[in-house]
């Protein structure tokens, strides 16, 4: 136990027992990004998966939105300590996008319009754990929240769910992304409270 704060009782908020350590519940949807909101017209939008051999798999908006889509309800956990439960998304599973991709790579570097990057093990993108999402709460995804499409990897802190996603590069080596290069945890599991590099 840490140092006791004289006279502090705290408030043990509603639902806190279902949240990862150090998180509190919010009902609105805060916006966090390191720079201005990107606005990418769907006419110009492309999503590319590049393998460790340089092979490219590319979808434009029409091809992407013609793929089978999942409707998922997931909890979001932001490293700035808010959590939002039971959010409804539609998107294309990474299992679908990776179905015809031949790779033996272990790592993925996710890239966004505007230059943002984030890294994660490829195994965290497969087996129904990740989507490229383009609808939220029954509507097209707003640019503030990452539209036209964002990565959605809800079992990791939300900075891994890159907004304005444009592609994924698969590699045999792990390359730190944007926040991972400036002090945030390389993996980012909210249940193990992996916020920062030790």
């Amino acid at each position: 136990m840490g140092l006791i704060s004289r006279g502090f009782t705290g408030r043990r908020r509603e639902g806190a027992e279902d949240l990862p350590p150090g998180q509190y519940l919010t009902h609105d949807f805060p916006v966090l990004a390191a720079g201005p909101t990107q606005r990418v017209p769907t006419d110009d939008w492309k999503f590319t998966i590049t393998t460790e051999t340089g092979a490219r798999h590319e979808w434009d908006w029409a091809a992407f939105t013609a793929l089978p889509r999942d409707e998922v309800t997931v909890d979001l956990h932001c490293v700035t300590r808010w959590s939002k439960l039971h959010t409804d998304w539609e998107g294309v599973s990474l299992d679908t996008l990776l179905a015809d991709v031949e790779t033996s790579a272990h790592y993925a570097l996710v890239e966004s319009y505007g230059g943002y990057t984030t890294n994660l093990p490829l195994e965290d993108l497969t087996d129904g754990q990740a989507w490229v999402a383009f609808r939220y709460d029954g509507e097209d995804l707003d640019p503030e929240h990452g539209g036209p499409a964002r990565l959605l990897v809800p079992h990791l802190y939300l900075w891994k769910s890159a907004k304005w996603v444009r592609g994924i590069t698969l590699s045999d080596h792990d390359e730190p992304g944007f926040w991972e290069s400036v002090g945030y945890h390389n993996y980012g599991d909210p249940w193990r409270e992996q916020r920062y590099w030790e």
Partner: protein
Amino acid sequence: MSWRVARVSGLRDETPSARTLVLDVEDWPGHVAGQHVDIRLTAADGYTATRSYSIASAPDVERVEVTVERLDDGEVSPYLTRDVIVGDQLEVRGPIGGWFVWRPEEEAPVQLVGGGSGFVPLMSMVRTHAARSSSAPVRLVYSVRAPDAVLYAGELARPPGHVQVTYAYTRAVPEGWPDRPRRVDAELLAAATWPADRRPRSYVCGPTGFVEAVADLLVAAGHDPRTVRTERFGPTGGTR
């Protein structure tokens, strides 16, 4: 990154709802302007609550100042702004953040745009600029509800380091102010900020709606989005 014990060595009321805590931190490693710290409170039964607060001071050996805005429905900020007394001990972890930072070695013009308590990390930049006698030219736009909500008003009245300060009062203006209450808009930014061709580095911090609006206006005015660094917080989210 480990928790350190901090002793509260001073308290300053900045506005009716914001207080600065001066913390003496054991083995404090120093910070860069724009970074924040986590503060952890622990109740007698072991329950803990942690929040992040921006650092307001310039880098110093073992002293760090944070300014906390009281949120009436908050869990941590009422304790820090009302209950804490000099001599209390708190736990802090940090410094945290490596993107929304300004280093005094950087020579490019600096554009600061703060809204409400989002001004706090920008004040650390203003103070660092002065403390290190930086030659980088700095302009500041500070959007604030009313004159009595201005943080560090006395210090900003004689801005250190020749910083050019422009206020935008959104609800109430000082007596004799030549303008009505207004939000930061394209016209104000055109008059008060560096033009895009000076290639400034811009730092925009405040509530989400404010940051969205200002960042969009800067991009529309020709600023390269990669030069516009933002930090946002909502009523419940973000770093406060």
